[in-house]
């Protein structure tokens, strides 16, 4: 099933180069008063599914933003493969080529059809309109939305909307998907369905997935769970050491 | 229509190109205005629209004013052009250096000229030959009465009082735009200080030459509230005065007529 036959248990990942390496990352707001991130160190391997958990305000979204180059770190360094973030000249281009975002609140454009929403990230990219459309259609079909392509977001269920958002995140063939509570707005049935689809595609294409979640049943399916507390990684443990009980427990 | 013509004349004038000095006396100003009338010959064609006191509008008519003004003599011919009622209706007027004014009228080519009162209305309108001659600028008694605004233009008020106690018009109050050498508003009063007529300039135009201004539109309001609105629609600043132009004024016919009267 995997495009990468070398997918290995996480404890063996040290044998491979991490796709993402984070060293001493801090992110301060309001002139240093708010320390959203306060010294994060983390490696993520290619093809790995990492779940980030932690209390509200612990810095999960902030970490995702910095990884996705939406925010600039106050100090520390990140590497994408061998590329240091501080040397990236064009962060938009970096995002377009490497990162796909999925948000909790879908963030679809309400006046565009599902199909057009998926095509939006290709505007300004190389390739013909026709190619972009064909790819968007095949993604939507893959996500089970064949009959929903022409619908506007207002006419779609929450699960359908999030599936459109997933197709949108994947349209530019990113190497890493960053999802901030993608199931947070969905009921549990829909959440499971969306999660199955997302992890399915991600695994199938060998993509790296970093997902913030509050949901223990979601993090249980991750290769590894990272807990955050007060802007730091609280328990840098492998998924194998983490039990669902532990994760679900009160922080 | 004193002002009327004056204005026109002024337009036609060439002399007195020197600017008006700040400290000008009343007599300087009157002298300037007197000289501004001078012309070796001009023609102005006027379109006249009358509004009677009761609001009635007789048909508008056109007339031509031809004049020759110099220090010694001032002569005018006023000729009706159209419509039918005024066609071939002529008036002529002159004043010599003695200040005497003569006028005559001819209602048709056949009838010839008869004497006419220069202070009387012509063409049943506020047009008066005496006014067109602008004689008050030669009167002795002139007094300045300060600045005023007429139609948004600054002007100097000057009052001229007649030398001759028998003159119908005893006092003329003008408001002169010194740059344009044009009276923007002229009021005529009789011996009992009653207002006879007011002439106002509604619209100025640059003259073809010399840089002065001429009246393009003006109005004359009579004591009886008749209003004449006059538009200068054509003209010639260098009209060629011919031997026939003022022939009627030189003809002995007039004297015979007068004696017969």
């Amino acid at each position, binding site marked *: 099933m995997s495009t990468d036959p070398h997918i290995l248990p996480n404890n063996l990942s040290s044998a491979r180069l991490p796709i993402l390496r984070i060293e001493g990352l801090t992110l301060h707001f309001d002139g240093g008063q708010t320390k959203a991130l306060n010294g994060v160190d983390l490696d993520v391997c290619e093809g790995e599914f990492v779940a980030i958990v932690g209390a509200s305000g612990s810095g999960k979204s902030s970490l995702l933003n910095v990884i996705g180059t939406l925010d600039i770190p106050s100090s520390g360094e990140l590497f994408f493969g061998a590329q240091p973030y501080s040397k990236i000249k064009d962060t938009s281009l970096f995002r377009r080529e490497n990162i796909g975002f999925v948000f909790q609140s879908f963030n679809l454009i309400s006046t565009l059809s599902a199909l057009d929403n998926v095509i*939006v990230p290709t505007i*300004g990219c190389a390739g013909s309109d026709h190619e972009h459309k064909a790819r968007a259609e095949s993604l939507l079909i893959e996500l089970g939305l064949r009959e929903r392509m022409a619908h506007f977001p207002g006419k779609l269920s929450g699960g359908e909307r999030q599936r459109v958002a997933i197709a949108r995140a994947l349209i530019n063939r990113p190497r890493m998907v960053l999802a901030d509570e993608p199931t947070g707005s969905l009921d549990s049935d829909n959440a499971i369905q969306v999660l199955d689809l997302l992890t399915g595609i991600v695994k199938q294409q060998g993509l790296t997935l970093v997902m913030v979640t509050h949901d223990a049943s979601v993090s249980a399916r991750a290769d590894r769970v990272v807990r955050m507390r007060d802007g730091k990684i609280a328990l840098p443990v492998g998924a194998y050491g983490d039990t669902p009980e532990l994760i679900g427990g009160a922080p | 229509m004193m002002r009327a013509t004056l204005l026109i004349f002024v337009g036609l004038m060439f002399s007195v190109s020197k600017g008006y000095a700040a400290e000008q006396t009343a007599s300087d100003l009157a002298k300037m205005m007197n000289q501004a009338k001078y012309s070796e010959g001009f023609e102005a064609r006027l379109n006249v629209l009358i509004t009677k006191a009761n609001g009635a509008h007789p048909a508008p008519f056109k007339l031509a004013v031809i004049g020759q003004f110099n220090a010694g003599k001032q002569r005018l011919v006023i000729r009706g052009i159209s419509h039918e009622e005024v066609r071939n209706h002529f008036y002529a007027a002159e004043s010599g250096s003695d200040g005497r004014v003569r006028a005559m009228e001819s209602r048709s080519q056949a009838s010839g000229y008869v004497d006419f009162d220069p202070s009387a209305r012509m063409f049943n309108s506020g047009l008066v030959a005496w006014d067109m001659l602008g004689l008050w600028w030669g009167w002795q008694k002139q007094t300045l009465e300060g600045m005023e605004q007429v139609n948004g233009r600054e002007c100097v008020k000057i009052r001229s009082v007649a030398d001759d106690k028998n003159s119908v018009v005893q006092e003329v109050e003008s408001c002169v735009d010194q740059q344009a050498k044009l009276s923007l508003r002229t009021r005529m009063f009789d011996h009992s200080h009653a207002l006879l007529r007011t002439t106002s300039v509604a619209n100025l135009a640059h003259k073809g030459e010399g840089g002065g201004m001429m009246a393009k539109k003006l109005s004359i309001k009579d004591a009886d509230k008749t209003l004449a609105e006059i538009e200068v629609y054509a003209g*010639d600043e260098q009209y060629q005065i011919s031997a026939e132009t003022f022939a009627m004024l030189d003809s002995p016919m007039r004297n015979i007529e007068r004696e017969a009267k």
Partner: protein
Amino acid sequence: MNLFRFALNNLQRRPARTSLTVSAIALGIAAVVALTSIAWGFEASWQKANDARGTDLIVTRAASENTMPSPFRAEKVQQVLAALPHVKEVVGLLSEMLTVSDDAPPVFVFGWVYSSYLWEHLKLVEGRWPNASAEPVVVIGALAAEMLHKKTGDQVEIEGKSFQVVGIFESNAVVENGALLMTLEQAQQVTDKPGKVNVLNIKVDANTTEADLRNIKEQVKMTLPGFVAITSGELVSQNAVVRISKAMSNATILIAGLVGALVVFNTMLMSINERTREIGILLALGWQRGTIMKLVISESVILSLLGGLVGILVGVGIAWGLEHIELMRGKIDAIFSIPFFLEVQALSIVLGICGGFYPAFKASRLLPSSALRQE
């Protein structure tokens, strides 16, 4: 789905605001189109009248600012001019704007030297030409005939004198089409200007060069103080009415351009402030800052192009309407051309870009994380 369609979609989201903005731009552009086409048409019509007559140079009194140069005695000037090298013909012309009917506005009355070359460019559509210099008849332009309700055989009264209409002509200059034409002798008589003309028209021989023309102009300046020799184009561009109408059209272009740019500016600024979060999403999805700028500027240009298009239609309508008002008949002949419309569209594009530039810049500078946080 591409940038253009996305921009269109964004404009469709706020139909009321979009149509108001387009209307505001359209009004300005309409004023520009109407005034400019009339100003140009005015100039071109005078130009045509002069060109069509085959006149190479025009001699008038210097410093005439009126529509028509002031009259002067032709004889001596004519002799001097005729003696200049290359001068083939010198022909006098007298023109006045006169009312000839109580229920029609004033018309031009032209007096042209009998049987001179001036008459050659006219096309007689009815009747005949005057038979002699002293014949008290007129021929009238087709438009004048219509406006005055006159036909061949009718009488017209000009300055108190009755003239018979003996013919109706057509000219490709609207000024002449709306005019009454008689011999110079008759015109001088009826306006009491014996021997006078406003203009002397000079026709030069075939092998005259530009330099020769300049030389003639120079000679006139030296030997005839108070007179100038100019080409018909120069006369037209010196004409006060032409100058005023052109100045007015230029002022309108400036004002409409400024107002249009401001309207676009305001609309787009409002629009991007509303869409801050969406712009954050687009940035997160990997949109380049340049693409954001292109999007906002595309929206501004679509607004202003639409405004320009509607404005052109309305402006043409206004000019057409003015042309057909009785009072204006025969006086304006608005000129429209494809290049003119393209220029107007270029103007609207420029104002769209100008008005949209700052909002676009502002949108493209948004920090994606804070834009995303916006509700």
